[in-house]
């Protein structure tokens, strides 16, 4: 109880301070895959042209140097960032400003040569997606050969000690039976961090029943992660760390399936520059409902300093099933990406799934 109280105090203070230290850049909306769970509904051609690097840097440079903490990281996302032919120039420009950069990729283009180029450009952290064994991953990603390419990229990145690397897996009804096999496969590739998330009903996944776990399956997933974490802690031999993403409040599984209690930091320490210049929290948050400005009209830093109020005071989420929820003060309406459209109701309640 006292620990919960302290964490609430910590969270409130972090919200008051709202130090920006994690900036997504949706640098392209192009993607060569056709993932069933894509929240961005990406296409190979892309609906929007890639944002010119100079435009992003102009926005980045509005952040005063003294306001950039040492851990400040620019996270390249998309679409598939490796489709940008200037990806190395992007990385170098960020490093020249003394900032860290990282990237989320599907791994398709991540071969030895690409790895070498990105390391030279100062890549500091990398996440590659793997959504099951071969058949299930390729089904999920909409392109045969995706698994083989991703697995090769994972092996390459896992062997590189100079980046923080993890694998992220979206667990659905088709791959949930493969958790143990997938765990062993990743561990065999030398992966040290495996992060698991589930689907929120937006984008292409909204009406796809195979994407959404039943409540019993979701609880089973929590049990799997808890067990793996306990085994790793007991063994103490540096085996792969399995965590659940910070996508939602988990009630009895808080602190058991990830290191820290739930804290949606969107708009508190996290911002994003979207493909069309809009400024928001995380890229998977409803951009029509929650964008706070646009780098083509506003100063990114001014927007960060003076807007983002719906992110920093979540009392507005006490509506619908959250109105009288007994855990609201710890959950605060779940992750911001769980509010869409008219925001009349949270679209996903992890706490209720666990029951």
């Amino acid at each position, binding site marked *: 109880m006292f620990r919960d109280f302290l964490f609430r105090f910590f969270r409130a203070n972090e919200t008051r301070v709202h*130090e920006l230290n994690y900036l997504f850049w949706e640098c392209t909306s192009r993607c060569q895959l056709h993932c069933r769970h894509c929240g961005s509904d990406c296409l190979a051609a892309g609906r929007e042209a890639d944002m010119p690097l100079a435009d992003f840097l102009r926005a980045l440079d509005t952040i005063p140097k003294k306001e950039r903490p040492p851990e400040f990281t620019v996270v390249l996302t998309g679409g598939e960032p490796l489709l940008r032919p200037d990806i190395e120039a992007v990385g170098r420009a960020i*490093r020249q400003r003394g900032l*860290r950069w*990282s990237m989320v990729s599907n791994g398709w283009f991540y071969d030895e040569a690409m790895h070498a180029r990105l390391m030279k450009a100062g890549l500091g952290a990398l996440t590659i997606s793997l959504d099951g064994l071969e058949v299930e991953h390729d089904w999920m990603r909409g392109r045969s050969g995706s698994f083989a390419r991703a697995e090769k990229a994972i092996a390459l990145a896992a062997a590189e000690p100079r980046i923080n690397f993890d694998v992220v897996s979206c667990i659905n009804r088709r791959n949930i039976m493969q958790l143990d096999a997938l765990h062993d496969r990743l561990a065999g590739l030398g992966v040290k961090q495996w992060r698991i998330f589930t689907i929120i009903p937006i984008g292409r996944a909204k009406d796809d029943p195979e994407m959404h776990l039943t409540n019993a399956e979701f609880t089973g997933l929590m049990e799997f992660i808890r067990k793996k974490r306990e085994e790793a802690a007991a063994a103490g031999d540096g085996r792969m760390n399995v965590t659940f993403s910070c996508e939602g409040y988990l009630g009895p599984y808080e602190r058991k399936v990830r290191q820290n209690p739930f804290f949606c930091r969107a708009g508190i320490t996290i911002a994003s520059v979207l493909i069309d210049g809009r400024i928001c929290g995380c890229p998977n948050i409803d951009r029509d409902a929650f964008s706070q400005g646009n780098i083509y009209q506003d100063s990114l830093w001014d927007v960060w300093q003076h807007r983002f109020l719906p992110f920093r005071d979540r009392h507005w989420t006490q509506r619908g099933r959250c109105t009288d929820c007994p855990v609201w003060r710890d959950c605060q309406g779940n992750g911001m990406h769980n509010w869409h459209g008219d925001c009349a109701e949270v679209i996903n309640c992890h706490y209720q799934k666990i029951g």
Partner: protein
Amino acid sequence: MKWLHNLLKGMSLTAALFVFQACYGTPPGYPEDWMEEETIETAACQQDPTAVPEELAALEEPETEVVE
């Protein structure tokens, strides 16, 4: 209270509180031992970087084979 934020951040016992990643983001930053380095060299870097793969440059929509 910025001073409290800085104090907590500086304390090794509570540093874990600041180790986070967004739901769909990457792990934070760089491994500690080289995050200040300006020149990055790895074994893989000894290879000659090649040009952008032709496959990447030639990417077109019809290339996608949808798996059902």
